[in-house]
């Protein structure tokens, strides 16, 4: 018994050791399985992050604990989630804004899929096309049945145009069910660029179209009335001009008698009058002469309106030289420097354009009479791209405040010190207007004046008003 007890104890210990070893192996197996699970999950997470799995040397427990990939990925996911949450909030806000615009828009808006099925529509769209239905009720119906009802040809179908590859589709004046629309369409693509949906916008312009038609009708009516009224004015003007011509013409004969008999009185009966009587008679002669001049001017201005224009190329420089010589010959004692740009040619009526230059250069000659170093220039410039002729002098000039009076009949800016009837510039303006040109003047008191005028295009096919 004494020998068998230790032996028995040893056997027990061996058995216990074997059992412990077995438990240890089982635990090791369990641990390995759990570590394997963790490694697998880490690798799956790394795969989600788009990178490669852990390598062998990174797989041992110490490395994993030191590097802590699980902790890193966990923290990263937290930040990604926070970012996604923020983006979701922004998207929600954007969605709410879009829906508010969608609902409040005063144009019809509809979204369809590539099979022409209605996916959504705003209130205005339903009001225009669908009547008393909710968005849910109309959802899934075909737009061809609900909107155009098959009355629109394929080439005017915005959905078809987008499906055919167009980036946008736009149709103006699209008529359906008695209404007129401007239709705009645009595609919504998925990530690979395929068209998934189409947004259509219908702007009802029926009222606008009616207003435009009404406006066009009124404009046409107005145009007719303007033409009629212009014709009436032209008729009245013509009558007035005839009247003026007749009066002027008829006045000449009695005036000639007054003038003639006054002169006879002055020449043959002068000695029978006292000095005062003689003075009165001389004044009668002077004013009848002046009146005769005015009547001649009036007849001239009437003729301008009545004459038919005969168009040709006119060498304005040559005409200006002739006019200048005329004045030089008339008053050889005056010293006036003429500066005339050569070869200035315009298309117009030679006689009337001659009158223009005679009047303008005549005025310049007259209003530089008191100037020692008088200078008169005829030249050409370009204003706003238009060829513009001008006559400039350094004479007495005029106050720009009165420039509107310059071209009015019988209006004069200067007194008796300068002779004139006040008809010359009115005649010039009438001639330029008959050529469909423009005339205007610039001046300054004591520094001279410049008269500018334009004449129509020189192209012989461009007819000048008769």
């Amino acid at each position: 018994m004494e020998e068998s007890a230790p032996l028995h104890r040893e056997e027990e210990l061996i058995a216990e050791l074997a059992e412990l070893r077995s438990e240890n192996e089982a635990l090791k197996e369990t641990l390995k399985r759990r570590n394997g699970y963790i490694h697998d999950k880490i690798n799956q997470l790394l795969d989600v992050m788009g990178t490669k799995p852990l390598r062998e040397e990174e797989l041992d427990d110490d490395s994993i604990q030191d590097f802590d990939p699980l902790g890193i990925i966990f923290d990263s996911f937290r930040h990604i989630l926070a970012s996604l949450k923020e983006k979701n909030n922004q998207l929600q806000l954007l969605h709410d804004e879009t829906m508010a615009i969608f609902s409040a828009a005063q144009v019809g808006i509809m979204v369809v899929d590539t099979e022409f099925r209605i996916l959504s529509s705003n209130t205005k769209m339903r009001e225009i096309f669908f009547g008393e239905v909710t968005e849910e009720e109309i959802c899934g119906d075909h737009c061809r049945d609900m909107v155009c009802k098959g009355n629109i040809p394929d080439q005017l179908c915005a959905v078809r145009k987008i499906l055919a590859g167009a980036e946008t589709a736009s149709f103006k004046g699209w008529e359906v069910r008695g209404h007129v629309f401007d239709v705009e369409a645009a595609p919504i693509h998925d990530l690979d660029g395929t068209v998934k949906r189409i947004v259509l916008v219908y702007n009802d312009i029926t009222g606008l179209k009616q207003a435009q038609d009404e406006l066009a009708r009124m404009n046409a009516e107005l145009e007719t009335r303007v033409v009629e009224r212009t014709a009436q004015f032209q008729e009245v003007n013509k009558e007035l001009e005839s009247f003026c011509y007749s009066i002027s013409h008829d006045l000449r004969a009695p005036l000639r008698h007054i003038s003639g008999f006054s002169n006879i009185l002055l020449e043959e009966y002068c000695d029978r009058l006292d000095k005062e009587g003689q003075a009165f008679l001389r004044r009668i002669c002077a004013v009848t002469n002046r009146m005769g001049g005015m009547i001649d001017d009036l007849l001239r201005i009437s003729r301008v309106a009545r004459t038919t224009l005969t168009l040709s190329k006119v060498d304005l420089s040559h005409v200006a030289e002739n006019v200048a010589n005329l004045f030089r010959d008339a008053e050889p004692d005056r010293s006036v420097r003429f500066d005339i740009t050569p070869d200035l040619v315009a298309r117009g009526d030679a006689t009337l354009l001659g009158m223009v230059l005679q009047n303008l250069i005549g005025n310049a000659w007259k209003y530089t009479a008191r100037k020692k170093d008088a200078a008169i220039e005829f030249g050409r410039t370009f204003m706003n791209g238009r060829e513009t002729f001008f006559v400039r002098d350094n004479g007495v000039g005029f106050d720009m405040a009165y420039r509107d009076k310059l071209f009015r009949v019988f209006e004069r800016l200067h007194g008796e010190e300068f002779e004139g009837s006040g008809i010359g510039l009115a005649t010039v303006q009438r001639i330029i207007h008959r050529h469909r040109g423009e005339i205007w003047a610039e001046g300054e008191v004591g520094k001279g004046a410049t008269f500018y005028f334009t004449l129509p295009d020189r192209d012989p096919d461009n007819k000048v008003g008769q």
Partner: protein
Amino acid sequence: MENVQTIEFDISGQICPSTLLVALREINRNIEGINAGRVQLAFKTDNRDCTSTIPEAASNMGLRVDVQKDDSRYTILVSKA
């Protein structure tokens, strides 16, 4: 970019997945500074794979990523979007 501190990390010689994990660890550590616009991180690497993995992960966190190439090396700059 005034008053923005740039922190540089040289992860040359490292390959995936450690390049991404190192970058993510540093981004996580500095996320507040980056989001406040005070800090930007510059990762210098010679591993071409991580020029797509790091930008994608950082973009998902709502950050801005610029990749510059200099010879055979890359600099991945992570900053506030």
